[in-house]
């Protein structure tokens, strides 16, 4: 049981390192740590995150926007264990500034080659890089859908 867990742990840890350094152009780093290797199943896993020019911190003491990036990194790294055919993300970019929105975009585009990404967003920066964009609007309380081809400037 311990052996299987540690093998999975290594896989996810490796993917966390890869994803976060891809997002930060190799300027930042992230990794997963077992709190107590003697008691794996009684202790926890720390997600350590180091943004460029900042000290490394456990993900729960990051800022709101930084936590979003940490959470995305963790979720997508789990793919190395269990790859979902699709992801539904509803405005996960809400608390991100321009730089972190770009980092999110980078990893979404890369991971969308493996799994389909269905992303609800209000940000042009994200929508304009999609393969396909759907606009939704309400008329008399009923939702309607209109399809845009990708890379069209979408104003929200």
């Amino acid at each position: 049981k311990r052996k299987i867990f540690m093998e999975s742990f290594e896989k996810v840890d490796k993917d966390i390192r890869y994803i976060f350094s891809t997002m930060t152009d190799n300027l930042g780093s992230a990794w997963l740590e077992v709190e107590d290797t003697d008691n794996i199943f009684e202790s926890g896993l720390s997600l350590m995150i180091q943004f460029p020019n900042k000290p490394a911190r456990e993900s729960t003491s990051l800022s709101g926007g930084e936590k979003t990036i940490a959470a995305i990194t963790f979720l997508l790294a789990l793919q190395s264990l269990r790859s979902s055919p699709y992801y539904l993300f509803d405005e996960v970019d809400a608390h991100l500034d321009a730089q972190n929105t770009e980092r999110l975009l980078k990893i979404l585009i890369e991971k969308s080659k493996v799994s389909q990404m269905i992303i609800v967003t209000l940000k042009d920066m994200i929508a304009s890089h999609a393969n396909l964009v759907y606009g939704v609007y309400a008329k008399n309380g009923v939702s309607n859908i209109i399809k845009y081809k990708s890379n069209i400037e979408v104003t929200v």
Partner: protein
Amino acid sequence: VHIKKVEIYGFKSFGFTNKVINLEKGMMCITGPNGSGKSNILDAIAFALGENSPKSLRVDKLHSLFHDDNNEQKRKNIRVSVTFDNSDRVIPVDANSVTITREMPFDGDSIYYLNGKHVSKSTITDLLDVALATPNRLNNVQQGMIMRIAELNSEERRKILEDII
């Protein structure tokens, strides 16, 4: 395997006309003003694939899923279909496309269809489980919930890994 079509009828803000969304592989975006119906599309996908908890569908009770604009139409059913491109046969069904349809009458239990054939709900959930396509909190992050993922404590993170293995 990816979602290539979603059809929504009578579900939440989608009225009693069939709305069709054709999707492709890669990155798909849904955008539009507040209250236009974006999150309802994601709810519709989760609903069709078996999600049954009112809280996860963001309603107080399942009856509130019926489009409420016109009361006498209440007797119409809700119908949502999700079609997967299954040319890689990740879903263990021998067909290039797999359509899962959920129909909910106003006063009865939901009925599920697999490529048009009436099947039990557990048939659907078994197929989705094998293909890792069952909606859950790791592949369906609802509005405002990304912060909660980041605030998981270290024990919860370990349990997530244990559950997957």
